[in-house]
């Protein structure tokens, strides 16, 4: 931009407020001025984003449309109309009364995701507090080990893990899904990072001086301080656990399924009746969509923080 152009303030004095505002707008739009967060997106940018969001949302809406329709209609029109029909409740009732125990699967998923989230958050905060604020022999080495375990593909140990679960007699039981997921290396790392910055040593010392035991200090000082990161971790763990398929599929099987496993069974046994299957998909997806509506903002900022911080 040429340096001899008058400043906005000067324009305001000589030509009035409206001209100044127009000049400011012009500047913000200027092609080589303004980059990154200052750059105003052109119409192309908005069109691109609208397309991206529509592509993200449409498949879900498509599932909803089929879930509100009936099998005959779906067979007749491969492209569903844009407005839902009125048979959603009917279809959901049919799913619930089908041979597959969707209600039980729903409860199972709630139990697994809930317990896993609470336990991952608790143990990760505990370990994160120790790694970031307490001194002990071998601390750095152990933390490095925790981080290194994140690189190991989880599916590698599926066969022997199954053998272990079979020996314990846990196959087909929720505990076989819960226990391996109770801790997470990522969670430990995430909480360590957060508590390192968020909890000043003075607070810990103050609690100690007041006579609090180690655990008491953790419980009433570290845990409250870690709450923002903990809720984020809980959110991610819940989503991850709710959508997990491979391991529950192997170890639970058809007897005591979680929702994704039940969906698989539903698809395998009712493969012609897509209104029924999609009703199942809607039942399995709606809870997370509700969660997303309320906590999507945190989910977004969590991903972005995680990407920047580690």
């Amino acid at each position, binding site marked *: 931009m040429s340096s001899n152009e008058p400043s906005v303030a000067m324009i305001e004095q000589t030509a009035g407020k409206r001209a100044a505002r127009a000049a400011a707008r012009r500047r913000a739009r200027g092609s080589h001025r303004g980059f990154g967060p200052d750059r105003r997106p052109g119409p192309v940018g908005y069109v691109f*984003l609208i397309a991206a969001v529509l592509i993200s949302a449409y*498949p879900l809406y498509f599932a909803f449309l089929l879930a509100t329709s009936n099998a005959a209609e779906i067979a007749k029109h491969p492209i569903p109309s844009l407005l839902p029909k009125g048979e959603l409740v009917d279809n959901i009732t049919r799913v619930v009364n089908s041979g597959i125990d969707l209600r039980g699967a729903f409860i199972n998923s709630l139990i697994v995701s809930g317990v896993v989230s609470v336990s991952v958050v608790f143990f990760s905060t*505990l370990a994160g507090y120790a790694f970031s604020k307490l001194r002990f022999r071998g601390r750095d080495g152990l933390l490095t080990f925790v981080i290194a375990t994140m690189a190991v593909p989880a599916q590698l140990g599926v066969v022997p893990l199954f053998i272990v679960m079979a020996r314990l007699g846990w196959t087909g039981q929720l505990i076989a899904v819960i226990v391996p997921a*109770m801790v997470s290396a990522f969670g430990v790392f995430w909480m360590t990072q957060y508590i390192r910055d968020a909890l000043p040593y003075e607070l810990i010392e103050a609690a100690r001086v007041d006579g609090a035991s180690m655990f008491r200090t953790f419980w009433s000082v570290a845990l409250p301080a870690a709450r923002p990161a903990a809720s984020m971790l809980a959110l*991610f763990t819940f989503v991850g656990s709710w959508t997990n398929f491979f391991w529950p599929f192997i170890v639970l099987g058809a007897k005591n399924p979680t929702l994704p496993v039940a*969906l*698989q069974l539903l698809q395998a046994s009712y493969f012609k009746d897509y209104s029924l299957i999609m009703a199942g998909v809607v039942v399995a*997806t709606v809870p997370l969509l509700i969660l997303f509506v309320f906590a999507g903002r945190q989910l977004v900022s969590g991903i972005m923080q995680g990407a920047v911080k580690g």
Partner: protein
Amino acid sequence: MTPAATPLKASREPAPNPPTRTQRRGSMSRRDKLGRLDFVVSPYLYIAPFFVVFAITGLYPLLYTAWVSFHKWHLIGGDQGFTGVDNYVNVLQQPNFWIALRNTFSIFLLSSVPQIILAILIAYVLHTNLRAKTFWRMGVLLPYVVAPVAVSIIFSKLFADQSGMVNAILGQVGIGPIGWHASAFWSHIAIANMVNFRWTGYNALIILAAMQAIPRELYEAATVDGAGRMRQFWSVTIPQLRSTIMFVVINSTIGGLQIFDEPRMFDTMGNGGADNQWLTLTMYLYQLGWGPQKSFGRASAVAWILFLIILLFASLSFLLTRRIASSGTDPARSGRRRRPRRAQHRTAARRAGNSRVQEGALS
């Protein structure tokens, strides 16, 4: 704490309990001993849950896999003796193994390459002075909360050969129906689309975060040097995103090579198609272990082969991405030195950790 009366030792190490009793009695009381024990042992107790659970459900199975892979091992019968590398030899002689390998790589490439390019573009548009920023960010993240199984069911209906919506639309444009399930290539495209659907927005947000961390001075300097928008994008933005792109690529390598949910649910049989058109390595592993053969030994051998492949390709994509992203970095490199310390620290942290995508992809 009364400093005068406190024994020197206790004052140097912050005691968990105020040492009033110690002062009075001159020796360690029971409570104080407990306090010291608390102080020394607690950190280990706090980190113990992770290590105990990981040892039992992570490390032990990992090593055990190697052991099982050298044995004849039946799902129900259990260990039936040491067989050396027989399982490996057997697996490598199966044509299905090679088909699965080909499919896995094909799906992996068809999903990660467009996904990362698209994610960078979305991030680039999101990285502007948009109205309703949060709405757009949430909009592209929406698919992330949908279970892969649900995504697969929806897409397998969308891409159905006869009654699918995609073929119906193509038919109206005058393109004949595509055999999404019959042809290996088209089934890979359909499956890659499921993966892209779920992960593109997620990766876009990670890249967006990295874009926001690029110091503004670099763009100012580029503007002064007369670089246009495209030139700035290629010579400033992309090189500065290097470590993040690397991380996204490696994570999609680790996740993509283990793909199971999407191909398993692509049809109702879950066997990878009549001619194994979309059988992947993890599906093959499952078939060996829990299918008719029930051979845990061979399944374990596949697991180890898969692990070695992932290791190889994670390092390969590491090297490759570093080369691609560092081509034409001369201006950026000199800029990097000028970056404020905090930003550098952040980049380092990003490089060190970042298991996020993997976490999501695996769990």
